[in-house]
């Protein structure tokens, strides 16, 4: 192969090489498949490899390019989080419940990325049904952080983050219900973007909490995220909550400066919950944005702490309703020798779902049950509005909100398993962004003892352009996003 180093190559670089004809998609796809074979046993980031399908679409991509019929991402390899339905490729949501599920159709996002020309290499590991912040609830075992294999990659899109960090693919998809793109991106040192709720169709994405779920790109750079996002967005008749708003060219939106841009720093994001070293790196990144002409201002998000409680009522409540479909009848796991219908339902579900998923279904069912609805679900929906209003008020004095993506660097595997609450606290800076439906980007902001941390940039609804532009300006000034872990550096 030529001078391309796949441990650090960006999609933008690969597209240039494909255009110039210095590499074919087939060569590229074979090289990434080899990297998966070599490095995946250590990181467990990929749960299904579509070897044949990938080679076939790479060959088709090369033909399309030869005919001048290429799309924006033609021939670029990609991994999908195993929450996206892919017709003909097993889609498990990392659950025993769906361990043998082959969906009869593909998610809209999958169709759109196919239309843009991507080559799907396979599916990535995740927390079961996206419920977790460490990838440890996966039926296929945890994925490990490429920066330190004894540590978690974050979650729930942990496999997607670990895969990009280890150079198993230049692009991956993720979903984010309470931080599931941004937190693993932060812990694995990559770029992860959750756009505004409604930007991307949820059709064919296995539902967790429907008023919070949103898909997004997980990449090395903001430029790649912009390229990928442009291909993923748009109104979809199959998702009645997908937004009827024009889709800008996010790549073009990267151009321009951020002089005079007001960046709000919520004091609640820099409280004593934040690791001191993480705080230092975040302040250093903010200095860089200031040097680009941004103006830092103080803002308040007074209900940040209550965002955790709000989320852990609303998300489980919606999940308990969404996961009612797994009944052992129409698809998914079915128990052996059911004695009656009730036994069929209860045993199929308890055999098929892991502990964390069952815990959330219980909490959600409780919060929605007669006698508790007002005290929990309705109350949480009211606080949700207050949190959303807090953001609106903050955006009266700033154009962007910045802070850490997560309070700490990656923690050791097993460290928080016995304490679900400690795990929930990891998402303190991301949950509220989903409650308010805002776009949130995590970009690498440095290493602490060789472990990455991420800066989070939060924008106004549907103002992805400003968020991406600021993130891109940071990456033009700094090299945090160019750092790669040792494991993938070993060239195959």
């Amino acid at each position, binding site marked *: 192969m030529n001078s391309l180093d796949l441990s650090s190559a960006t999609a933008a670089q690969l597209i240039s090489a494909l255009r110039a004809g210095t590499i074919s998609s087939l060569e590229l796809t074979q090289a990434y498949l080899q990297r998966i074979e070599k490095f995946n046993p250590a990181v467990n980031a990929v749960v299904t490899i579509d070897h044949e399908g990938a080679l076939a679409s790479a060959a088709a991509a090369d033909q399309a390019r030869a005919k001048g019929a290429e799309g924006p991402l033609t021939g670029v390899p990609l991994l999908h989080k195993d929450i996206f339905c892919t017709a003909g490729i097993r889609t498990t949501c990392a659950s025993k419940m769906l361990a043998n599920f082959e969906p009869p159709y593909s998610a809209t996002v999958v169709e759109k990325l196919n239309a843009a020309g991507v080559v799907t290499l396979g599916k990535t590991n995740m927390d079961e049904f996206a419920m977790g912040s460490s990838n440890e609830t996966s039926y296929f075992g945890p994925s490990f952080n490429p920066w330190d294999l004894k540590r978690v990659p974050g979650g729930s899109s942990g496999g997607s983050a670990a895969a990009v960090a280890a150079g198993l693919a230049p692009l991956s998809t993720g979903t984010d219900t309470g931080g599931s793109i941004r937190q693993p991106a932060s812990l694995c040192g990559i770029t992860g973007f959750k756009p505004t709720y409604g930007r991307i169709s949820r059709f064919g994405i296995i539902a967790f909490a429907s008023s919070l779920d949103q898909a997004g790109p997980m990449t090395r750079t903001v430029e790649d995220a912009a390229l990928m996002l442009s291909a993923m967005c748009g109104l979809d008749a199959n998702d009645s909550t997908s937004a009827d708003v024009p889709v800008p060219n996010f790549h073009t939106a990267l151009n321009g400066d951020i002089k005079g841009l007001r960046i709000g720093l919520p004091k609640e994001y820099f409280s004593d919950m934040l690791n001191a070293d993480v705080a230092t790196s975040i302040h250093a990144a903010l200095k860089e944005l200031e040097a680009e002409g941004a103006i830092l201002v103080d803002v308040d998000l007074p209900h940040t702490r*209550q965002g955790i409680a709000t989320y852990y009522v609303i998300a489980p409540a919606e999940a308990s309703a969404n996961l009612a479909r797994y009944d052992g009848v129409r698809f998914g796991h079915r128990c052996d020798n059911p*004695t009656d*219908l009730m*036994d069929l339902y*209860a045993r199929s*579900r308890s055999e098929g779902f892991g502990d964390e998923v069952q815990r959330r279904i*219980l909490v959600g069912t*409780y919060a929605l049950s007669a006698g508790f609805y007002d005290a929990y679900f309705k109350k949480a929906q009211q*606080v949700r509005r207050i949190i959303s209003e807090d953001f609106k008020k903050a955006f009266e004095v700033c154009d962007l909100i910045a802070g850490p993506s997560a309070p700490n660097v990656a923690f050791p595997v097993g460290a928080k398993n016995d304490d679900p609450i400690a795990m929930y606290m990891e998402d303190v800076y991301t949950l509220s962004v989903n409650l308010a439906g805002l776009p949130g980007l995590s970009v690498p902001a440095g290493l602490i003892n060789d472990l990455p941390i991420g800066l989070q940039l939060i924008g106004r609804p549907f103002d992805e352009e400003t968020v991406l532009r600021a993130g891109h300006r940071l990456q033009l000034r700094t090299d945090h996003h160019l750092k790669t872990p040792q494991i993938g550096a070993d060239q195959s």
Partner: protein
Amino acid sequence: MPVTTEDVAQVALLARLSIPEETMEDVTGRFTRVLELVAELQQVDTDGVVPMSNPHDMEQRLRADAVTEENRRDELQKPAPSVEDGYFLVPRVID
């Protein structure tokens, strides 16, 4: 308000989950800890606040009432654990 194992058993019944006797104490303990966390909601004054169910307060979009989908029964039943003549099979419900 403390939650008992009986409360959890009742919720499990509603949720169609089967929790083994020997794990009931542990499940109840973790369930209680989550409820203690979400009790923080009560610190917020929400008098007169309209509940928010969609982050953009979006109205449900309606489509024209027209048939747009074709019959894909065989394909859609393929992942089912047990089917016969186009029906999903379940244990006998009426004796």
